[in-house]
Structures are given as C-alpha cells and as structure tokens.
C-alpha cells in the first residue's frame, strides 16, 4: 500500500529521459540517466493492472503530483479506484542519495489518520505489485552498486547500452532482494527500456519493459510499462495518461493537509 505513490512518481521519472549520447563507462551512463530532465513538476493519471498466473486481474486508478526541489522531489498520490482503496493517499519527500531516508506519510481513510511510514526497506514489495521500493526509484542509488558496461546491442530497433549493476555488499543484496540487475539503455534518449533482475541465489527473477515512448511537452515519456515476475508468473502493467508537465504546482500540494482532504476532480 505505502509505496504506490512512489511507484507512480518514480515510474514517471523512470520513464522520462533527456537527449544525450556518447560512449561511457557503466557508472557514467547511469549518471547520465540519473541527470535527465524530467520537468520541474508533473501531474498524471495512472492505471495499474495486477495479473496473476491464472489471468485474474485487479485494477487500480491513481492520480499523482510531483515537484522537484533541486535533486530532491516531493510527490503525492491519491487512489481513485476501486472503492475499497479510494482516498488512500501517499505523500513522499524523496531525498537524493543514501545519506537520508525518504520521508513518507500514508493517509488511511479507514482510520481517518495520517501514518508516518518507514521507507528504508528497499526490497519490500508494495500494494501487491511486482515492484519493490528500489525498482521505483528514478534510478537506483548509484553508489550502492558496482556498475559495468558489458556491451551494446540492438533492442526493438534501438541501439542500447547494456549496463550491469551488482550491489556492493551481501547486506545490500539482502536488503534489495537482488544479486544483479541488467539495464538496457537507449543511446539516443538515455532511457532504459528494459531491466532484468536476478534474485539473491542468481536465478532470473523479474523483467521490466517500458513501451510506447514519446515526447510530451518535450519530455520523453513511456506511456506503458510491465514488470513480470518470471518465477511466480504474476505481472504488473502500468499505463499513464493525462500528463501535464511544468504547471507550477505549489508547495502546499505536498502536505499532510492535502493527504487528509483527498483528491476530487473539479
């Protein structure tokens, strides 16, 4: 539950990219991905489909607001549907780097309370999706990985770098739930369009694919993304709509007040 907002925020950030090209090492490439221009703020709607191996589908609809504060950002996400999660809302103050954990607050309509929640367990899955906290970061915390450029190839008609990130310590591997992750990054827009993950035992675990990438207000944006858990057969499909970049969102949008008031389309 607690991270759906982060999912939306970060998926947005994750699926946007600046224009850049040039041969570099693994870390440099990931830094370029991290440094992309994704607009100063963003409003967007998101639909999430959770599909189990039998084909049973659960759907959720959300709207999210995000604003950058230099390298930090704030976001707030409201659940719009289905009714049993309606008015649940998540506020995140996302700090750059690993020195400080993000701050997160969750509004639970069943309790009518705002709860402070922990954001430190980056390997936790959230809201029944196939994304972990770590997956939904704009980019992983770069300093936690050893990055290696392992080559270039053509993927879906695009030239991509293939960069592997291995968590630096066993403790990090345990916390993140991964032993390795391989990023396929489009050279023309510095945006990763596929990520493969391996679990702590070295078995292939998940695959993230982003699709329908286009420019909105000058920002490269993926309109759809799918994370598939290869081991369980469960997958999470995300689709985005109604993007509005750089509308000048106020600081008060990202407050406990708005969590409690909830979102109503006007």
């Amino acid at each position, binding site marked *: 539950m607690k991270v759906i907002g982060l999912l939306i925020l970060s998926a947005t950030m994750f699926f946007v990219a600046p224009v850049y090209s040039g041969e570099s090492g693994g870390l440099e490439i990931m830094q370029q991905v991290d440094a992309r221009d994704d607009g100063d703020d963003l409003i967007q709607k998101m639909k999430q489909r959770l599909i189990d191996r039998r084909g049973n589908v659960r759907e959720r609809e959300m709207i999210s607001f995000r604003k950058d504060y230099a390298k930090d950002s704030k976001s707030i996400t409201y659940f719009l549907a289905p*009714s049993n999660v309606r008015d649940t809302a998540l506020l995140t103050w996302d700090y750059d780097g690993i020195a400080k954990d993000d701050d997160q607050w969750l509004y639970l309509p069943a309790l009518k309370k705002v709860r402070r929640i922990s954001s430190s367990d980056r390997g936790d899955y959230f809201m029944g999706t196939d994304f972990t906290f770590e997956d939904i970061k704009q980019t992983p915390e770069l300093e936690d990985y050893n990055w290696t450029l392992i080559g270039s190839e053509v993927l879906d008609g695009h030239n991509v770098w293939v960069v592997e990130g291995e968590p630096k310590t066993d403790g990090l591997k345990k916390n993140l739930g991964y032993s390795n992750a391989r990023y396929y990054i489009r050279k023309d827009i510095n945006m990763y369009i596929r990520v493969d993950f391996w679990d702590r035992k070295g078995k292939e675990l998940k695959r993230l694919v982003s699709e329908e990438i286009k420019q909105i207000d000058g920002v490269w944006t993926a309109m759809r993304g799918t994370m598939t858990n290869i081991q369980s057969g469960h997958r999470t499909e995300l689709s985005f709509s109604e993007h509005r970049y750089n509308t000048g969102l106020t600081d008060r949008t990202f407050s406990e007040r708005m969590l409690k008031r909830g979102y109503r389309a006007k």
Partner: protein
Amino acid sequence: MRRIVLIVAAALAFSSSAFAAEWTMHGSLKNETAYFVSGEKRLDKLQTRLDLKPEAILSDRWEFRGRLLAWYDAAMDVEQTNATDLTTGIKKHYRTYLQSKEAYLLYGGDAFDFRIGQQQIVWGKTDGLRMLDIVNPLDMREFMLDDFLDSRIGLWSARLNWYADIGGSEHEFEFIVIPDARPGEFAPAGSRWAFALPATPAGIALAVQPGDEPGWRLSDVEAGLAWRSNLSGWDLSLNWFYGWKDSPNMQKSLTPGLLTLTPVYQRMNTVGGSFSNAFGALVLRGEVAVNIGEGINRTGVTPATSIGRETTVNAAFGLDYNKNNWRISPQFFVRYLPGWDKNVVEDQASGFVSLMVSTDYMNEKLKPEIIGLYDWADGSWMLRPKVSYEFSDQITARLGGDVFGGVNGFFGQFDKNDRIYSEIEYTF
C-alpha cells in the same frame, strides 16, 4: 435528522445554482456473521450492512461529504428471546441501525479549510485504544470490537484548519466548536457486551437511574485547539480540548436494601500532544493526554464520596517495524493518577500493552493479521486473529475470532463472549 436535512438542502441549493454540481455515491454492502463459542453458544449477529458515502462537488471551493450506515441483524429474529441477555428490549436495540456518521460542507480555501456539519475529528497517533482521540464519543454496543470509523459518533461541529508558513515550515492550527455535546453510548444493561456493574453486598438490590446527559445547550458546548507541524523530521502536535468525559461516573446512594447508581457526566480539560518519526525500518510514535479534572469513581457509597475529580496522565508509545512485507507494531499505554488515594476505585497506575503482527501473500490478496491486547493492571487480555482474502477489486472476505481472557477486568469481563466471525463485503 432536521440538521441532516439542512446540510443536504444546502448542498442541493448549491447544486441548483449556476455551478453544475457533480454527485457521486460510493459505499459497501456487507454481511457480518458472528457466533459465540464460549458461554452460551449462539449467534451474536447476522448483520446485513449498507454503508453509503454520498458526495458532491458544489463549486471550485465547496464540497459536500456524507456517510450513512444502516443494518438489519437477523440474529435478533433467529435467536430465541429470553429474560437475560436477549430480552425484547435488547433485541430491539440490536435488530436495526440507521445513523448518519458524517454530513458536512467543506470549503477549501488557499490557506485554510473550513468544515461545518456532522463530522468525525480524529486526533492522536495510537491504534486500538484512545488517549488523545477524544473528540468524538464511541458507540460501544459491541464493546470495542467495531472499527472506530463505525463506532465513532459523528458530532455536529464547525472546524477551521488554518495553515501558515512560519520559519520555512508549514504549521497547521485547528479550531473546533461543538454545540452537539454527547456522551458515549453503551450496550444495554444485561446484554452480553454490557460493562459489568459494581458488585453489591448480599441482600442489597441495585438500581440505575438516568443521568443528566450533556446536549445541545450553550453551557454544554465543547471546544478544541490543535497545532501540528513537521519540525526536524518529527511530526508533532499540541492539543487542547474542553469537553465532556464520554463515560459517566457512577454516583452511589445507599439506603437500606438498595444501592442506587446515578450516571454523572463531568466536564474536563485535556491538554496533550503527539509525535512520530521514522528511523530506518522503525517508526516511533506516541501521544500524551493529561486530563485535568477528570471524573473518577471513588469507593464511598454516598453521593459526595462515590465520585470525584482528579488529574490523570495518559500516555502511549508505539513502534512500527516493517521488513520483508511483515509489519510488527507493539504499543505501551499507561494511565497514572498523581493525586491518587486509597479511596479511588482504580489503581494509581494502570494500562495496556498491545501487539499487532501482519503480513500478506499472493500479491496482497491474502492478508493474515493478529492483534493482542493485555491489561497489565488487571491481567485480562484480548486476542484478535483475522485473515482476509480479496477475491476481486470489489469482493473481500474475512474470517476471524475475538478471544477474551482473565478473571474480570477490562477484557476478562467478556470471557464468556469468545466468538468467531465471517465477513463478506462488496464495495462500489
């Protein structure tokens, strides 16, 4: 009812104005079935619940939000009437329910929100037991087993929340006025969820007289103030409430062969505050509520010696630990009477500990949870295991139990009320 009509009429008046209001209706239909498995085994409830949440966007600034809860409990017709815990009166009390829980207009300004109408106002950071969450009284027809959202009694009130940027941080100031002063509601005497009355000596009969409840009178108005902010990573609040204690104290009068109890409702001031912050995988939270002049029960048997007033200090501290989709939340509650003497009925120090453990499987379709509460002053306890399964976005089923233990005491008095229950809910 007249007040609800007024609020809805105001909302409808907006609707018919130049702004095209948009009305929506969400809610749920639920069956709750519970069966007593200790004491006299029988159905506790066979309820069909309808929960409606009408809302309207009336203009750029104004909204209407409401909630209506109704049910029919077929157990009151299935089970045999008796002369003890299922009398005709008790059955009537439990058979049907229809109450507005909320019906208010919300004005969202740039730097303030204003709400007027019937509201639930929730303070504090703790779960399961209330210390600072004292604004709305509870309907305890089912002890404390119902969700607070359902058992809280909505009060007609005006609330202004003003937000100011001071020193780079947002500060919230809340002002509350409640003309609708009301005490809590309790299970009818003799029913299985009724609180135990004081024991009487052999040969003494017990009579309970009606008390003078607070109501819609100028002299009974309640008021509150709160401040909230996030400072250096800490979520902080300071609170003050001038209101009525939800539960009455029992004034005694002993005449030969008869002990008469008269509920006495008393005002009190509550000052307190709350805090929370996250440290890695831990969230630390807590609250303190000092009740000044809280009504208490004393051991005397005359009107003058059977009740009194004391300052009570109530505090709670909790931790939330999250790891690998497991959530573990212990809490510690303490109540202390600095001016206690041996004629006060309760202990000088009392309180509870609680523990909640939950996790989820199958991408959060299956969610087991267990909550335990232990009264460390009287040794009684309550255990509440539950498992829920989400069949679809609309349909959720739950199975659970409520188990009580101890000899008398807060939970032990319901030792014969262990029950298992099922719920199936359709939300729309």
